[in-house]
């Protein structure tokens, strides 16, 4: 695997597919959630409208350099994660830039965006932004625990840190998926997944609906648009990681889309069912449920 100029257009194409897929999928899932709650819900193209609207807002203010750069970091994190992980198994081109690093890179690159975002929000000077960051970081780091252990379990199980090799090991029928070879690890990872998606019950961090709290408080217009873009890319990038690690990867784009949809649906469903946790509750939740399960998974290997 080496760099080739042709990878750049492929990367852009991946990005385009994922962005559009993300926009549509989130809208559809939101609509499904609304319908389940006997509401009408948004239109399936609503996300596009929001995005375009925000990109073209004319009121543009900034609180400083970091405020300005925060969303950039955020989006870079999302895109980077997506591109550092091979999207489609077996395809040299859809592996994008995964030659730069392996699983560990993905694991740590997750924080890149979080960090930048938090910094940007911090510079806004809005106490709620800081409060949100505090909560978000607390929760994410706690959620990260079972995930990291699960990831490591997988690496240990397949004796490699290379995504391609991990996926390769899961080929030949769904019973070879990590989901079935090491269910505990997957369970732990899924618990973490819920937290990382920041959906209910772990959505007190963003809590955009009720009170103006959370990092995006002071963001608006193009900044918000960048973040919205990211909100459609980043979860899918994470889902790609999950898919590769636990669910046999995706051999083609359709397989990719189905698996991504199903995984996303999981978090949405849980969100519909459970009420919201306070932050310390969610930390304890991850420590009490996520981590032990992950440990069992680790010892299982």
């Amino acid at each position, binding site marked *: 695997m080496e760099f080739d100029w042709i990878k750049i257009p492929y990367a852009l194409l991946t990005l385009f597919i994922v962005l559009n897929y993300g926009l549509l999928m989130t809208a559809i899932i939101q609509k499904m959630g609304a319908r389940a709650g006997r509401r009408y819900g948004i239109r399936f193209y609503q996300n596009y409208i929001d995005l375009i609207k925000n990109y073209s807002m004319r009121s543009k203010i900034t609180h400083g350099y970091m405020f300005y750069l925060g969303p950039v970091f955020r989006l*870079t994190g999302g*895109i980077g994660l997506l591109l550092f992980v091979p999207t489609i198994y077996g395809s040299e081109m859809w592996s994008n830039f995964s030659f730069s690093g*392996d699983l560990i890179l993905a694991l740590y690159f997750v924080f890149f965006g979080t960090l930048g975002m938090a910094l940007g929000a911090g*510079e806004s*000077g809005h106490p709620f932004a800081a409060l949100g960051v505090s909560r978000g970081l607390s929760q994410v*780091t706690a959620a990260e625990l079972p995930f*990291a252990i699960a990831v490591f379990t997988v690496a240990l199980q397949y004796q490699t840190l290379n995504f391609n090799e991990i996926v390769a090991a899961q080929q030949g029928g769904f019973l070879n998926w990590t989901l079935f070879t090491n269910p505990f690890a997957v369970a732990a990872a899924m618990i973490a997944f819920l937290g990382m998606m920041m959906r209910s019950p772990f959505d007190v961090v963003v809590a955009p609906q009720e009170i103006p709290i959370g990092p995006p408080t002071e963001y608006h217009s*193009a900044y918000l648009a960048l973040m919205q873009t990211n909100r459609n890319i980043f979860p899918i990038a994470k889902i790609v990681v999950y898919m590769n690690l636990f669910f046999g990867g995706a051999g083609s784009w359709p397989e990719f889309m189905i698996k991504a949809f199903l995984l996303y649906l999981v978090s949405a469903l849980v969100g519909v069912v459970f009420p919201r946790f306070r932050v310390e509750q969610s930390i304890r939740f991850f420590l009490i449920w996520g981590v032990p399960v992950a440990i069992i998974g*680790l*010892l299982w290997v």
Partner: protein
Amino acid sequence: MVSPIYLIVITLGAAFLLGLLSERRTELAHFITVLALAAGGLVSFGWLWIMAAEGASAVEIYTAGTKPPFAINLRVGLPEAALLLLIYLTGLMSAIHMKDMLLRKGRRAMAVLLIAIMALAGIIMTRDIFNIFVFFELVAISTGGMVLLSDDPRALSAGIKYLIIAQVISILLLVGIIFTYQATGSLNIDFMKTPELALGGGGTLAFFLLLVPLLVELKPFPANGWALDIYQSAHPAFSAILSAATGSAALFAVDKIMDIGGASWGPVLTGVGLLSFVVSNILALVQKNDRRLLGYSSVAQTGLILAVVGQRELLGESYLFIAGGLLIGHAVAKAGLFYLSDLVKGRMLTNWADLRRNPLLVFAFATFIAMLSGLPPFPGFYAKWELVHALMASGKTGLVVLILFGAILEAGYLFRWFGYLMKRPQSNTPGTLPLRGVLVTMAAALAGWLAAYIWGELSGYDNLLSQTALLFALGFLLIDWFPAKLKNTIAIAGMLAFFWQSYTGYDPIQMIFGIIILVGGAVILLASYHERGQRIGFYPSALLMFAGLAMLIVAEQSFQFFAAWEVLTLGSYFLILRGKNAEPHALSYILFSLAGAFAIIAGFALAAQGQAGFKITALADVAADLAPWVFILLAIGFMTKTAVIGLHIWLPGAHAEAETDVSPMVSGILLKAGLFGIIVLLSNMGSPELYGVKLTYVMLWIGALTALMGNLMAAFQEDAKRLLAYSSIGQMGYAIFGLALMNHLGWLMALMFVINHYIYKSMLFLSVGGVAKRTGTKLMYKMGGLITLMPLSFFVVLIGIIAVSGVPPLSGFGGRWMFYNAILDSENRLPMIIIFISGPIAFLYLFRLIHAIFLGQLKDEHRKLKEPSFWIMVPQVIYVVLLLAFAVLPGMALQKVDTFLNGMFPEGGLNWDGLLITSDYGYWSPVWIMVVTGGIFAAVFMLLLAINRKAQKVKQFNIVYSAERPYRPETTHFAWNFFAPYRKAIWFLLLPIATRFWGGITEALHATAGFMRRFYTGDAQHYVFHLLGFVVGLYLILLGVQ
């Protein structure tokens, strides 16, 4: 050389001569006194020279023209000559020091002083036990007289108490002498030696009665209340004699007497001595009066030497070296401290802060306490080393434990005192320091250094005082009056030159440490250019630390290693103490460090088994039954320095309260000494097993827990530098974890950590320190919003925290990557989980650091601040460049080490294939990560710029919340207790258990001391009870043993 009998003739003659002078000619009388003492000193020195340099054997002096045992004879050999010199010099210096008092009291007082010195010389020289008695009576009576040379009216009661005790002693001693005479048929020690036979029956008891009164002259616990009262109330110049000269003479008398009793009495001396040593040191802990404290310390030191005398058969040839080293260290230091106490007006320990006005006196004080604590390069250090080795080799572990326990207590109160001296408020009425007193004190300090040199020469090891690095550091003492900037230049040049000259001899691991210590140290020193004035004391301390570090990494023998270790400890202590509020923290630093050092010395001694010049590489050959214990001792020692959990409580304060440019030194560089020790340990000893448990596995757990707790606690600090300090604890935990994995990548990761941690922790400490200097606070919630005022600092911190947290693309990620690869190699899953947990937590504190300081709302009082001074920024910029370079090209530093590690761990190395680094499990291309990340970032940024280029900059306060506009930045900056939810969730992990534990121990010791010292009621009759109780108790114990 004239006959040693002239020592007595001159001194006594002068005393008699004084009687012929008129009462008023006190100046002349004093001159005669000084002259006589100086002459005595000269004669003693002559004999010492003849004995030591020309190797002459001991001379016998017969009196009355008759050979012993029929007439009294004197002997002067090497130890006698040395002690005589000590006694005469002490007498001389005291005579000079207390001149005013002597002049006031007239010629009689001087005669008393002369006779006291004469009698001490007599005790040293004579070989006749009754003669010893006579001289002791002279000493006792003259002590009674000299006590009166004091401004303290209480001296009178101290005098009568002493006389009362002296009466009891002399009664017992006379009975002992006559019965020993009856049993052996002689009064001459050399002719009494012989018969175990004759000493049987009543003879043993006779010897007991002979020995015990002499022991009581050594003021053993509990029969020593009288001595403490004297120390407290007498003129300090006399106390100097009592402690240094009288103590030495009495010790020597006991040593002589032991020729009669034989080796079987050794344990008695050792027991009595150690009891005094430990208990007196405990009692001293709660003592607030300086002179009484010195008294306790004297008693303790004498007890230690007595314990050594008791082991003289065991110590064999090195006995004189050890006992002499301890004695000389004690005598010179104690005399010096007593002289110093005369220069201090108040009698509280805290009053010593007044001495701070004169840096020379601070130097002298530091010299004295280093001597007393047995720190290099002083004689006590060599002696302690040899002593512990000899005792360990013969399995007397219990003795070693007691000795080291007592020593740490002693270091405790001495260094606490030094802290008072440096940090407590000075009195408002600074009197002038009398020049004579200063000179005498300095002479004592100088004598200490001289003794240090001599002991170094005698030691059979490289003389520490001829090591280039150390001499360079000490050289700064001489040029301390230069301006700081000049000294800084010299220091930087010196360190670089030293590196240039020695780097060719380094292997890759040494090279890493060498670069960090010498070059890295020089870089940090760039920041020191911001200081103006002279900055007295900074450079000797800093360079001492660097010298110790430089010596440490090239040490081949255990002795060199340990000496370097102590040097760097001492240097860094002085350095840390310079911080404004550093007093308690520096104290706990030095105490933990010394305790750790004691573990190290015990470990080396256990490993060496008496073998001289033990090479560090020989650790590999330690017998299997000892190996785990050696390993444990050494590991504890080294891990104290890296502040593993439980032993960490010294670190946060010490690092946080240090000066701006000192924090990076101690954090970025000094901590690596511990890691280096662990590397040396593991590479030589591997992983011994104890009861079936691999010790590296234990270390793995310790490392993991340290990483977790360090990070966790860092997340809850409000003080920025403390946060960084806790972060260092966590980071060191990672490194220890890596090393304890005992595989190729683990070690590589640890070494990478060494480099990374140096760079980013130095950088963060500098920038945070710089900011704190500007804002005047280290509390993060009092800062905020500084990004606009200090963008460069912000940028540095940003780079720093990205690097620390391990987020790609900076170099911290490389460490994490290797870490994961390393643990895939290893089988130890449970501790790994802990390490996992600690990873993300690092993120918490790092964000908090940058957020609370630079983001959020700017406080009103900070609105006019500027970037920290130029010189503080210079190293930071260098670090940023380094960090980026190291991020892109880690191979620069690591490839060689990787190859080198193949020697130890042939398996599992890395492949360095162009831009790609591959391990057995994964791959990593730092350059590409950087390029891709940079590319995406640039593209997104362009996009935003394109859309949003005309963004309007608004004031920070232009926000709305809770439907109101905020009006005070303080209420709007969310920074205090930032991670409240986390605290709520895991409060039980944050309990300060270690702090409570150590605090509890300290409190218990203090409470014990506070209770036990009630024992010294001050009533002379109670003191008689103690004395007789001591005699009877000892008798009963011996009876029981028989």
